[in-house]
């Protein structure tokens, strides 16, 4: 394995994916509004400030995970529209580089999405993180994002060549990301001081998120080539 070649390919793929999204505006015009809409609809459905404050962390991460499904489907729709994923495979482009590049591009989009959703939680649900809570929140978002982007890229690649991938992807992905939902929600509850939970109680949950991110980053990088091959 040539590490510099892997990272060169990863940069190339990430830049290409972000450029495609910038041009098509699918994420900004469709996925981000969808995520905000979910937050607004939750507010309508629950219709109680006290309840909304209590459930805000879980709603932020539920909306994130629902949106991940669209982002992952979109990143592979770009690859399969004109057979580009097959072409990458048949051109012998380093699969680890492809995985890392797609994960990086997905993570960048997810971070924008999460910033929007936390802002929505602050405005709609009156979430009010302290400075130390904000540090915990940003760290949680970064670690959870690495995990979600890795597992999304891995399972998206698995579903990419399969009939009915639109319905298969949620079935594969949602059960697997449950640890991220749990860990990120608990950490965010601490960051928002939901029910008086101290900020310090949120940090241990980062361990779960970090282990998840590490496992799926490594497994994805190693297994992606076999996954997209025959």
């Amino acid at each position, binding site marked *: 394995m040539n590490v510099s070649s892997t990272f060169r390919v990863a940069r190339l793929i990430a830049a290409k994916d972000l450029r495609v999204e910038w041009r*098509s505006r699918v994420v900004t015009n469709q996925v981000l509004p969808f995520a905000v809409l979910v937050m607004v609809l939750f507010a309508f459905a629950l219709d109680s400030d006290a309840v909304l404050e209590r459930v805000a962390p879980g709603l932020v991460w539920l909306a994130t995970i629902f949106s991940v499904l669209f982002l992952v489907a979109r990143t592979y729709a770009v690859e399969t529209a*004109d057979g580009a994923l097959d072409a990458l495979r048949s*051109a012998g482009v380093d699969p680890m580089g492809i995985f890392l590049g797609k994960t990086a591009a997905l993570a960048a989009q997810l971070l924008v999405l999460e910033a929007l959703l936390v802002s929505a939680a602050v405005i709609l649900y009156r979430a009010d993180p302290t400075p130390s809570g904000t540090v915990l929140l940003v760290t949680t978002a970064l670690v959870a994002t690495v995990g979600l982007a890795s597992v999304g890229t891995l399972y998206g690649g698995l579903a990419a060549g399969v009939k009915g991938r639109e319905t298969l992807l949620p079935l594969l992905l949602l059960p697997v990301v449950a640890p991220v939902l749990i860990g990120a929600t608990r950490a965010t509850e601490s960051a928002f001081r939901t029910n008086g939970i101290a900020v310090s109680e949120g940090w241990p949950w980062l361990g779960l998120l970090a282990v998840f991110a590490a496992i799926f980053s490594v497994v994805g990088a190693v297994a992606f080539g076999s996954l997209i091959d025959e």
Partner: protein
Amino acid sequence: MSSDGSSTPSAAIEFVDVVALIGSFPALAGVTMRIERGEIVLLRGPNGAGKTTLLRLCAGLLPVERGTARVLELDLTIDRDSVRRRVGLIGHTNGSYPDLTVTENVRFWGRTIGATDDEVASAMERMKIDGRLADVPVSRLSAGQRRRTALASLIARRAQLWLLDEPHAGLDAEGRDELDAVLRAAAAAGATIVVASHELERAGSLATRQIEVVAGQTREVGGGS
């Protein structure tokens, strides 16, 4: 000079009694053929005969179950990844990103192997997609222009062996003429081109030699017209 040190030029493809399986089905059942560098070879035969499978095998996308298979002097049984990097396969799709421009597509594929901007520009010029087409998104191109963009991407990533599956499909008469011209020019510049096609008149006039694929085996049917 060939790898064994003799003065015989090495073949682009050299298969002896090659068997390839799709699942447990022997899609290629003892293929023996030799294609020299710089040739344009037409693979002809009925649907399901194994033409596409043969192209995919040459591209290193299928494992060799039995026999001896060398592509561009590389042993397909042990070095498929290296073969893939030197071979370009264009099937029914073009492998492009429709939202990106022609230049961005060709540059992307070129940079997967570290091609320079000059190489990218040269590839686009050879395929006549520089100038006014360079900054047009691929989604707005005609089928022929998309095919030329895909071929420019092969040139940019220095593919020495071009494997084209039904390259004339979906093109109008003008597009087919343009495609034939660029393929002849590419072969003259040193590329080896293998075309699988049902359109015998069109592809036959392009080819220097024809090989028939029937029931997973090959036989020579003479030169092109």
